């Protein structure tokens, strides 16, 4: 707990002082002291920019964003990593995406498939080996679809994975498609999200037009990856409210649901960073409107459900949704009060992901805790400052390398009535296609840092001593060695779910445990001097 307000300006100065001048200059524009002016205007931050070599960063690569994040949670595609063995190994089951394939359903998520390139393939090319890999995977597993993920050397040796995919698609008679997601593309996982979005849209979305299930209230949830079972909670809530969930991109998803996703009437975007491209393309091509929702936090969940119901302009749906919200919020409130009493006034820092550092502030607020500092690992300016800044974002060389699909309206499948409904609702103040970003919702004078480094992490903790620090596995044990509990927001410390109402209660409990655990008071033996504060 802090007695006086920490000085973000002084902290920033101290952090920058450590760097060589060139690095310091860049970091200067990646650290911002928050200030919220009229119309939610916040200071500009430099984001989605290269990490200086030598900096110990949280960031991973394009392959991780593509294969690991976006395609990882889909259970019935055989995802083949084309490259030396490492990348396929490290992305094997390490993201805790849960799935429910039923008793007999296809589920390849527990498998790691690789073309295992050797030196001779690097020298002479790996296309033949890739072709053979795809053939062998088909012969053994007979999947609905096979995808190919390129790793760093693939681009350099000039393997054309898309040509191989095309050939094999014709030969095998199933969908085969490739991703040029070499690790060095872009500056973080973010480029991989975009590449994944492009290929999902190009190769799968729209292949199946049959409307199954309920014909009304059809929605997709975008940017939800079913870590720790979050998607299960959301699916359950939507069903109880009366929505028909067509597809999830991509927690607990299937190939077939992607192919059918254009039959939904509304897209709700959770992780704006990783999936807004699909939302945008679906709107352009099919006329499906999208809005930015959030199922992290009880209040945010209620708000999102209400907004979803309002879109369909159906009293019965709204009533049913309200009833679910009421029932759930009453249960949540009992738990929340219990934990708030023990957590109120404590402080948190969140440095993680491309939306989680924002979303989870909701839960801390519900616990009466204050966020002192936050930042993303791989987000862009719009995730910090809101989509209103998109026209002003300078496209640098790294972003220019990532393909931008040019989508046009599908005259046959475009649903004009959706666009008309959107227009009507907008006139009533309903906001579509917007994300206000993290900073407008943060306190003035809180510190916002993009792509935080290991050095900055330690310095922040040492100086401001938060009660809990949220990050990922690489940071976790550094933080905890310092006597501060870490809550992992990538894998939830093998906990969760944290989405929806039930998830909020889980999070309250887990944070209560973290910040009130007796363990942190046991670090010193009776004969040891207390570490100087």
């Amino acid at each position, binding site marked *: 707990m802090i007695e006086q307000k920490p000085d973000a300006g002084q902290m920033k100065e101290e952090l920058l002082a450590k760097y060589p001048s060139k690095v310091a200059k860049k970091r200067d524009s990646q650290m911002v002291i928050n200030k919220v002016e009229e119309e939610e205007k916040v200071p500009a931050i430099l984001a989605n920019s290269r990490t200086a070599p030598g900096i110990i960063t949280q960031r991973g690569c394009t392959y991780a964003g593509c294969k690991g994040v976006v395609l990882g949670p889909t259970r019935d595609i055989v995802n083949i990593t084309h490259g030396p063995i490492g990348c396929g190994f490290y992305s094997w089951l390490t993201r805790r995406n849960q799935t429910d394939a039923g008793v007999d359903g296809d589920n390849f998520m527990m498998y790691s498939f690789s073309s295992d390139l050797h030196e001779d393939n690097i020298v002479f090319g790996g296309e033949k080996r890739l072709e*053979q890999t795809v053939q062998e995977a088909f012969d053994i597993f007979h999947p609905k679809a096979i995808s190919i993920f390129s790793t*760093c050397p693939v681009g350099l040796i000039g393997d054309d994975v898309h040509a191989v995919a095309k050939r094999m698609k014709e030969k095998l008679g199933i969908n085969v498609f490739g991703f040029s997601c070499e*690790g060095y593309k872009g500056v973080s996982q973010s480029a991989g999200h975009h590449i994944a979005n492009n290929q999902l849209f190009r190769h799968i979305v729209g292949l199946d037009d049959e409307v199954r299930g309920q014909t009304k209230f059809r929605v997709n949830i975008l940017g939800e990856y079913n870590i720790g079972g979050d998607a299960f909670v959301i699916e359950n809530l939507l069903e109880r409210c009366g929505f028909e969930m067509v597809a999830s991109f991509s927690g607990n998803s299937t190939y077939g649901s992607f192919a059918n996703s254009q039959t939904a009437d509304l897209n709700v975007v959770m992780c704006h960073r990783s999936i807004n491209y699909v939302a945008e393309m679906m709107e352009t091509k099919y006329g499906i409107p999208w809005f930015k929702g959030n199922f992290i936090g009880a209040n945010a969940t209620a708000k999102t459900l209400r907004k979803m119901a309002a879109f369909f302009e159906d009293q019965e749906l709204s009533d049913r949704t309200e009833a679910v919200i009421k029932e759930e919020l009453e249960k949540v409130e009992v738990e929340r009060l219990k934990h708030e009493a023990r957590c109120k006034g404590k402080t948190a820092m969140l440095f993680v992901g491309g939306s989680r550092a924002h979303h989870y502030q909701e839960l801390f607020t519900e616990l009466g805790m204050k966020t002192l500092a936050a930042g993303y690992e791989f987000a862009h300016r719009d995730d910090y400052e809101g989509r209103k800044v998109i026209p002003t974002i300078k496209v640098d060389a790294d972003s220019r390398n990532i393909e931008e699909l040019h989508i046009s309206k599908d005259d046959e499948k475009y649903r004009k009535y959706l666009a008309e409904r959107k227009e009507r609702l907008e006139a009533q103040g309903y906001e579509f296609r917007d994300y206000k970003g993290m900073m407008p919702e943060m306190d003035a004078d809180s510190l916002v840092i993009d792509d935080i480094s290991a050095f900055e992490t330690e310095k922040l903790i040492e100086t401001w001593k938060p009660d809990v620090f949220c990050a990922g596995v690489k940071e976790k044990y550094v933080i905890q060695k310092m006597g501060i509990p870490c809550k992992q927001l990538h894998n939830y410390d093998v906990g969760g779910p944290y989405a929806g109402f039930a998830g909020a209660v889980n999070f309250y409990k887990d944070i209560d445990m973290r910040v009130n655990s007796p363990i942190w008071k046991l670090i010193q033996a009776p004969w040891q001097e207390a570490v100087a504060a």
Partner: protein
Amino acid sequence: MALLRHTPKEIKERGALVVNPAKTCQPIGAMYASLGIHGCLPHSHGSQGCCAYHRSTLTRHYKEPVMASTSSFTEGSAVFGGQANLLQALQTIFAVYDPQVIAVHTTCLSETIGDDVPQIIKKSYDEGKIPEGKIVFNASTPSYQGTHVTGYANMVKAMVTRLVKKADVPNGKAVILPGWVEPSDMKEIKRLVSLLGIPFVMFPDTDGVLNTPMTGHHNFYPKGGTKVEDIAKAGDAKHGFSLGHVATQPALEELETKFKVPGTALDLPLGLLATDRFINALRTVYGVAVPEEIDVERGQLVDMMSDMEQYLWGKKVALAGDPDQLITLTEFLKSMGMDVRHIVTGTEGNYVDTRLKELNPEANIKVGGDMFLLHQWIKNEPVDLLISNTYGKYIARDEDIPFLRFGFPILDRQGHQFFPTVGYQGGLYLLEKILGLLMDRQDRDAPESKFELQM
């Protein structure tokens, strides 16, 4: 409901597709070895993802901080080469993280581009970009050759090439080059050599680096790890011992060729017989008597092996893991009458192939195999015990086999940081674990009439 529900019993020959690998890539081994030098920051010359993946995997295995930096390649570096990235990285690292040593390893990206890392490091030295008294060295670890074990071997060999010095003042030390083992094993090896009263230097040494205590403070460079000045002394040592042929024999040979330090290549001292050979080799070279303490430990292990024979004899075992471990683990299991049926390792090599086949002439052995094949073998010929890294848990659950986690990585259990599996003590620990699993299974499955109080 089977977890690995798509794994058929019928085995089809595969020439390209790897499913559920029993290996990973070189750089992670190099990173692990580098952490065994005191004050060293491992540096990954490649894309950010490599470093992130390696740090994450090592962190999940040890539940400890794993610090390492990266050259953060982007498309530009992939086209124009990574020299500028590495030069800038070195400058930033010394300014911000101030290590004593930077151990650079390469990746498939920088190797495919053809970056000349030794030349870039030389340039940095020549241009005065490396602060006085600091050391930067490198190992070449392309991910498309060999495996994680090769990466470890290459980095340990690079330590000999780059860090060992010869002052021509013999210091009588033994150079101990441990294979890829846990911090707990490193500690146990040091204890045994110390008990023999032999002066030694051991590198790498991750004891005190990846098994550190909670103090309320993060030591960016923990107390453990071999100091560079101690590694340097290996050039004037009396004798070198490598523990594990695949992981450290290359370093031993380098020590012999470059510094004329005679060497003995030993197996990893895992199990009774391999530990006997280890103690005996040290004893013979140094002409020392083996202290009673070691004799007692050995006797305790043999005692337990003989007492519990009935629970082990004839039990069928399947193994996946790394070559040096598999060689002496199978020897250990066979010394207790167990029947090793199936063995896979992802790390190819004639040496391991020959040794494993000599030790287990009746077994299914695939050097360069994967865990998918192992699972298929098990489906065709079931076993009583599976020993592998954490990924074996899916097979174990599907086939309802007692499962011992052993090797790298272990992502779902604790203990490997603290409890060794090398030496006689390690043998006791392994044996206790195996017995526990087999006896729990007997207790679980025994009908009422056969349920035993005493075992």
